[in-house]
């Protein structure tokens, strides 16, 4: 696994010292005291790498990926991306089905980023029958919708895919199929993945590197095997303790 670091030493994403605090307070709306969501997060991501962020809910994982995906602006810190076009970072949300407008057909969804002619290719790439392109989104099952969301993300020629607990809502067998598909795509297209999970289960199987995140900080980071065998931080230990699927070693 560590070999990956050797093959691509040049990172395609470099995040340094990211901070973000939330305050709902403004002239017109009351709110509580400001709350830090990100507190100086730094990491690098290389091509073909899968990096997982693991931590309890409210640790700041979602804020982090939203900042990376450009949905939110960090208060300070730097996000450097090798590509010029931000479209090359695509986020697949928690429940991928919600990212599809239920009024549209599969064809409309996948061609939305402007990839009209490639739709059949993209659909087959994610393992959906090409004939289904005329069907409405609502006609698809949960797993199929995830694939549809993936196909649309691929239409943007992404270099980084962010999976924000995107597989959590799927049944286990479907999850496994998706993981295989994702690994396959990583092979074929050289994608890098940022994986968000609140438990270690799927991250342990899938990621090259795991970063444990707690209260807006990365408290521990390393390859899964190292992390599971020699956890340093109490948070890591507690996460291991309650991992549902057991430890992958």
């Amino acid at each position, binding site marked *: 696994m560590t070999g990956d670091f050797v093959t691509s030493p040049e990172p395609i994403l470099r995040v340094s010292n990211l901070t973000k605090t939330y305050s709902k307070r403004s002239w017109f709306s009351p709110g509580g005291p400001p709350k830090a969501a990100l507190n100086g997060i730094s990491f690098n991501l290389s091509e073909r790498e899968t990096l997982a962020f693991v931590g309890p809910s409210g640790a700041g994982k979602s804020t982090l990926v939203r900042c990376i995906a450009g949905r939110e602006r960090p208060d300070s810190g730097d996000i450097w991306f090798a590509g010029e076009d931000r479209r090359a970072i695509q986020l697949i*949300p928690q429940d991928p089905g919600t*990212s*599809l*407008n239920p*009024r549209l057909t599969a064809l409309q969804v996948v061609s939305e*980023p402007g990839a009209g002619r490639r739709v059949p290719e993209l659909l087959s790439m994610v393992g959906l029958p090409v004939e289904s392109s005329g069907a409405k989104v609502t006609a698809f099952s949960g797993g199929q919708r995830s694939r549809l*969301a993936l196909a*649309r993300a691929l239409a*943007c020629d992404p270099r980084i895919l962010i999976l924000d607990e995107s597989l959590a809502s799927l049944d286990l067998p479907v999850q496994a199929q998706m993981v295989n598909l994702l690994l396959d795509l990583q092979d074929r297209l050289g994608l890098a993945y940022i994986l968000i999970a609140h438990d270690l289960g799927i991250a342990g199987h899938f990621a090259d590197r795991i970063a444990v995140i707690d209260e807006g900080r990365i408290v521990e980071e390393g390859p899964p095997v190292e992390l599971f065998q020699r956890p340093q931080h109490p948070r890591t230990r507690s996460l291991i303790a309650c991992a549902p699927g057991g430890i992958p070693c």
Partner: protein
Amino acid sequence: MTRLWLVALTLAAIHLAVALAGFISPYDPAEQHRDYPFEPPMAVHFFDSGGNFHLRPFVFSAGRMYPLQVLVNGKLFQVEEPGHVFLLGTDAFGRDQFSRILHGGRVSLGAGLLATLLTLLAGLILGSVAGFYGGWRDTVLMRLAEVFLALPWLYLLLGVRAFLPLSLDPVRTFLLTIAVIGVVGWARPARLFRGIVLSAKEREYVYAARGFGASSLHIFSWHILPDLRSAALTQATLLIPQYILAEVTLSFLGLGVGEPAPSWGGMLAPLREAGMLTSHWWLAMPAFALLPVVMCYYAAISTSPSDR
């Protein structure tokens, strides 16, 4: 579903009758029969005083029998001069109420539709801008909406009428007035639409669309407008009767359709005079035209899937 059909059919029938007013009504709505002011409605008879049946129905005008002539001179029915047929009676100038109700419907229904269209258009644009862009645009527009809600539009109308050219015919004058009401009414639907846009733009698929760099126009027309459509429809069924009724209020204040053009509100206005309703009850007939229209629109609201 059957109820919705019934409502739609009734509305269609009324609108059709009003659209064909020129053919169905026996008289010009402005024609004054000065010798017949406040004539009560005439009954259509089939039996004469001797109890004999006549295939061709007839009316009594000035004590004489006049058979109805059907489909002559491009009219659905009329009677020979010097007889008159006033199915729903006449007003103070001896103008045929039946003809005036049909012609007046054009103005009243047209005004309702026009004002609704303008309100929705203005509300849609401003509400969407406020909700979609947020920030200072939202603040300014929503504060302005509150001001507009608090302002009674009556004053505006006084001013507007005074500035319209005098040579404009009464119907156009009124349509312009009601257009002003329509535009001024943007605030309420705008707030509704803003709320819908606000929640719609938080949808995951909107974020996704932003993620692959879709333009605002694309996002709006693909992902937000469809949400607004059903709300706009509901609003329309709510606003149309409201504006039709507004015409009644305007006429009571002397700001409605000018003479001699008929409108339902204008025709009801004389009822405000003391004793008019009791002595000339048939002047209330336009209210019975108003009733099914407004009821149907309200029924349409309660039948439509998304409630307000």
